[in-house]
C-alpha cells in the first residue's frame, strides 16, 4: 500500500474561477486520502439532494469475449453485500459456491466442447443447481438496497452504463444523505454477486428488447463497421454470445479492478451543507483502501483509409446514415465540429431548409457531433420522403452537396453566432435540473475534470467561421466516411 503517496484530505473550498461564475457553476470539491473525489453543488430550497456516484468504467474497458460485462456488473451491484440482501451471509455463501461450481462444470461442458457436450450431464447439473438456487432463497432478502432507498423517499433511483462511465443514482430527502454514503461505500468494497444466473437472463432479455427496436440490429452492424479496432466497436449491451457465456469470476475480477475509490467520483446537488457532506464522505468512503492505478484503453481507432458502405433492409423507416471519424473530446477541433452540427441541424438549420423545406426530399434530417473520450464520430442522418419515391441514395448526394458548400463557401457569421448562442443557453438550461447537472458534472470530472465544461464553453466562443471551414475540409472526406443505407421491407 503506497500510503506515503496519499495526500492529506484537502478541502479546496469554492473553486469557481471567472468563467465558472459566468455560468453559475459553483462546484465545491473535496479529495479523500484514497483519491476519491467528492463534488458538491448547493441548491437551497426544496430539501432534496441528488446523490450520484460515477465510476470510470464502461464498455470500453471490456475485451472481445467479455462484451456487455460492465453493464451486467452494474446490474449485479444491486444484488447485495455481506451486510445487505442476506440474512445469514456464511450459509448463503456456502450454497452460492456450490451453485458456482456446478455452473462452471456446465459452462465447460456446453461451451468448451465443440458438440455442446453431454446433454444429460448438463441437465443433471442444471437440476442440482436449480435445487440449490431454491434453497438459497431463504437467505436472500430480495432487492434490499432498492427497498431501503425507496422507503426512505429515494427517487430517480437507477443506474446506467455507457461506453466510458457507470453511474448509480438516487435522490433523497436532505436529511438522509448518510444512507447513500453507507450503502454506496458498502457496495464499493463488499459487493457480493447473488442471483447471478437469473440476472444474466434479465440482461439477455434487455438485449432482446433492443433487438426488437426497429432498425437496431442494422445500426449495431453499422457501428461495428465504423469502429473497427477500438472498444467502441461493440454496443454497451454486448454481443448475445458473450452474455450467454459470461461467468461469475469475470464479474468478480472486473469488480476488483475497477470499483475502487480512486476510480470514482461522488456528486451531491441540492439543499446540502458541504461540511456535513465532507464529514460523512470521510467517514464512509474515506476508509476504503486505494486501488491500483488503471491503464486507460490500449487500442485506439486506426485511420480508415477508404470509404465503407453498408446496406440493409427490414421493418423500419428507410434512411441514410453517413458517419465520419473525428477526434475525441478535448481536441481543439471538437468545438468547431459541434457548432457545425448546430448550424446544420434543427428546423432553422441548413439541412432542414434545403432538404425538407425547399426541395421536399426528406421528412427529417440531422447532423450530430459525438466526440467521446478516445474516439469521435460526426453523423448525418436523413429520412427520405417515400411518398415522393425519394431514395436514401438521393439524400446522400444532397448531403455531400451541402458539405461541399461549407468547404468552399463556409458559414455565415450570423449562423455561427446563432449556434454559439444556442450552445451556451443549452448549458444554462441544463443547469436547471439538479439531476441532469449532477450527470454532466460528475461524468466530466472523470474525463477531463468538471472545469472542462466551463473551458469548453470559453473555447466554443472563440471559434471562427474559418475554423468551421477548416474542420469540414479536414474530416468530411470520402476515405473517412462510412455510409449506411437502410430500406424498408416488411418482415425480417
Amino acid at each position, binding site marked *: 500500500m503506497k500510503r506515503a503517496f496519499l495526500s492529506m484530505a484537502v478541502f479546496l473550498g469554492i473553486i469557481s474561477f471567472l468563467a465558472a461564475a459566468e455560468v453559475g457553476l459553483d462546484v465545491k470539491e473535496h479529495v479523500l486520502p484514497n483519491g476519491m473525489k467528492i463534488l458538491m453543488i448547493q441548491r437551497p430550497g426544496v430539501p432534496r439532494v441528488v446523490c450520484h456516484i460515477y465510476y470510470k468504467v464502461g464498455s470500453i474497458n471490456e475485451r472481445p469475449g467479455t462484451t456487455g460485462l460492465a453493464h451486467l456488473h452494474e446490474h449485479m451491484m444491486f444484488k447485495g453485500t455481506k451486510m445487505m440482501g442476506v440474512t445469514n451471509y456464511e450459509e448463503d455463501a456456502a450454497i452460492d459456491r456450490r451453485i458456482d461450481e456446478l455452473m462452471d462444470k456446465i459452462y465447460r461442458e456446453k461451451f468448451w466442447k465443440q458438440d455442446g457436450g453431454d446433454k444429460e450431464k448438463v441437465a443433471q447439473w442444471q437440476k442440482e443447481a436449480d435445487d440449490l438456487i431454491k434453497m438459497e432463497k431463504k437467505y436472500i432478502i430480495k432487492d434490499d438496497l432498492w427497498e431501503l432507498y*425507496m422507503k*426512505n423517499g429515494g*427517487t430517480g433511483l437507477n443506474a446506467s452504463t455507457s461506453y466510458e462511465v457507470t453511474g448509480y443514482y438516487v435522490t433523497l430527502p436532505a436529511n438522509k444523505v448518510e444512507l447513500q454514503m453507507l450503502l454506496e461505500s458498502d457496495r464499493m468494497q463488499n459487493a457480493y454477486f447473488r442471483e447471478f444466473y437469473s440476472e*444474466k437472463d434479465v440482461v439477455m*432479455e434487455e438485449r432482446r*428488447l433492443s433487438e426488437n427496436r426497429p432498425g437496431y440490429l442494422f445500426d449495431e452492424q453499422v457501428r461495428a463497421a465504423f469502429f473497427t479496432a477500438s472498444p467502441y466497436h461493440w454496443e454497451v449491451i454486448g454481443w448475445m454470445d458473450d452474455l450467454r457465456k459470461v461467468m461469475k469470476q469475470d464479474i468478480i475480477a472486473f469488480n476488483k479492478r475497477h470499483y475502487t475509490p480512486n476510480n470514482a467520483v461522488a456528486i451531491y446537488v441540492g439543499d446540502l451543507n458541504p461540511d456535513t457532506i465532507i464529514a460523512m464522505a470521510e467517514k464512509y468512503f474515506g476508509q476504503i483502501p486505494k486501488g491500483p492505478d488503471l491503464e486507460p484503453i490500449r487500442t485506439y481507432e486506426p485511420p480508415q483509409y477508404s470509404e465503407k458502405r453498408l446496406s440493409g433492409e427490414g421493418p423500419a423507416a428507410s434512411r441514410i446514415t453517413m458517419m465520419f471519424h473525428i477526434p475525441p473530446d478535448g481536441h481543439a477541433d471538437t468545438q468547431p465540429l459541434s457548432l457545425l452540427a448546430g448550424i446544420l441541424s434543427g428546423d432553422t438549420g441548413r439541412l432542414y431548409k434545403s432538404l425538407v*423545406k425547399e426541395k421536399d426530399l426528406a421528412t427529417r434530417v440531422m447532423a450530430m457531433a459525438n466526440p467521446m473520450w478516445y474516439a469521435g464520430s460526426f453523423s448525418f442522418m436523413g429520412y427520405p420522403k417515400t411518398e415522393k419515391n425519394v431514395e436514401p441514395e438521393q439524400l446522400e448526394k444532397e448531403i455531400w452537396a451541402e458539405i461541399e458548400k461549407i468547404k468552399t463557401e463556409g458559414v455565415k457569421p450570423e449562423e455561427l453566432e446563432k449556434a454559439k448562442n444556442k450552445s451556451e*443557453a443549452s448549458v444554462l438550461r441544463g443547469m436547471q435540473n439538479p439531476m441532469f447537472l449532477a450527470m454532466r458534472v460528475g461524468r466530466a470530472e472523470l474525463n477531463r475534470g468538471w472545469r472542462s465544461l466551463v473551458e469548453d464553453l470559453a473555447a466554443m466562443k472563440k471559434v471562427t467561421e474559418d475554423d468551421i471551414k477548416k474542420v469540414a475540409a479536414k474530416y468530411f472526406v470520402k476515405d473517412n466516411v462510412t455510409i449506411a443505407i437502410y430500406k424498408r421491407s416488411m418482415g425480417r
Partner: protein
Amino acid sequence: MKRTLALFVAISLIFVFIGTGQVKSPQDLKFPALKFDPPDPKAYRTVFAQNLRGYVQEDHSLPLVNISAIVHFGNIFTPKDKAGAGQLLEGTLIKGGTKTREGSAIEERIDFLGGTLSFSVDEQTSTLSLSLMSKDLEEGLGLFFDVLMNPEFRADSLAISKGRLIEDLKQANDAPSAVLAREFETLLYSDHPLTFRPTKASIEGITQGNLKAIQAQYFSPKNIILAVSGDFNKAELVKKVNAIISSWKNTKVVYPTFSQKFPDVEPGVYFIQKKINQGYVSLGQLGIKDTDPDYSAVQVMNFILGGGSFTSRITSKVRSDEGLAYNTGSRFTYRWGFPGTFSGYVQTKSATVGYAISLILKEFERIRKEPVTDDEMATAINYYLESFSDFFTAPAMTMMNFARLEMQGKPLDYYKTYRDKIKSVTKEKVMEVANKYIHPDKMAIMIVGDWEPCDKGSDKFPGPLGKLGKVQRISLRDPLTGEEIKPQ
C-alpha cells in the same frame, strides 16, 4: 417596484450531526428531523387581463425564464374524419407563422436568442412552451403571444407537416411496444374519440381553415392557464403580459360531452402476430379516474403489486426471481375525465410468454386474497411520504403542476392533503380496492409476438396459450387506411 423573492417553501431543516462513528447497518442510522410544507398554489395564482389565469414564481438562481400556456384543447375534440388535426396543429402553430411574421422568422429569432419554443397537443390539452434568457424576456413574450393569438398555419408548413405525419404513419406498426399500447387502448375503449387514429385520408382532408377554426374556437384567454417561472419581476411581467393581450377577446366555447360508457371486453387472449423474439404483453382492464376517492389506496396497492419497481411483487417474482424479463410490473394510467387503464405488463422471450403471464395472474389473485404485509405497507406509504417534496424540485415543474390542477378542476389543496390521504390507507383498504378494481376473470390478455413459439411455451408453462382463455387472433390495421391487413 417591490421586488420580492417569493417564499418557495416553508422549510424547517435541522441538521444534527451524528458523530464520527461509522454506522455498521442501515437500521442504526438516525436521521435528523426534516419538516416540509408544500407551497400553496394560491400564493402563486395570478389573474391577468381578459381572465387569463396563471401561476407565477420568481426564481433568480439562473438568468432564464420558462413560460408555458396550457390550452384546453386536445385531440379528443376533433371529429373522427378530422383525426390528425391535433398533430397538424402541433406541426404548424409555430412553423405556420402569424399574421405579421413568417414561421421561419419566429424560429430563426428564437434560435438566435438561444431559446426554445415548442408546442404539443395531448388528449385534452395543448401546451406552448418557451424558454429563453431573461434578458430577452420582452421580445420572447411578444413572439410567444403572437403565436398563441395570431397563428396563420401557412400552406407550406401545413404541407410539410402532413408529409411528416404520413411518413410517421408508415412506421406505426414497426415497434412492438407502440403496436401493443395502441391496440390495447383500442380494445378497452373501443370506437371512441379517445381512440380515433389519423389515416392518410383524414390527414389529407384537413385544411388551413380547419386549423384556424380550432384556434379561433379554443385558444381563448379564459381557456388558458399560464405557468411562468424564472428570473423576472412578477409585477413587471404581469404588466407586460397584460399590455400584449389587451385586445385578445374571449370567445364562447361549448365543449362537447363524451360517452363515459365503454363496452365490456370479452375476456381471453388477443394475439397480434409479429415476427420478433419476445412477446410484448399487457393484461388488464379499465381502471379508475384519479379523482376517485379510492385513488390513494389504489396507488398504495399498485405500488405493492407491481408499481413500486423492484420492491413490488411482480417485479420481484418475474424479473428478479425468474429472470424472465427486463421490464415487468403493473400500472394504473390516468386520464382527465375518463377512467384510465389497469394492466400488468411484461416483455419476455417467446417461449416464456405463457409462464410470465401465469405468474402475473397469480400475483393479481394473491393481492385480492391475502392481506399485504406490514413491511410492504410501510415501504409503500413511506415512499410516497418521503418522496413528496420531489413534486416541487424545480419552480417550472411546480408552476406546471399547479396550472394542471386548476385546468382539470382539482382542488387547490390537492398537495396539502396528499400525505394525509396516503397515511390513511390501511391494509384492509388495500385488499378492498384490489378486489374492487382487479378482476382477473374479466381481463384481456394482449400479446404482440410470434405465434408459434409463444403458443408452444416452455417446461414451466407448456402451451397452448388457450389455457389462459379464449384466443382471438387480431389483424393489424394498415395505418395509412385504418383497414385490417389481411394475412398473406
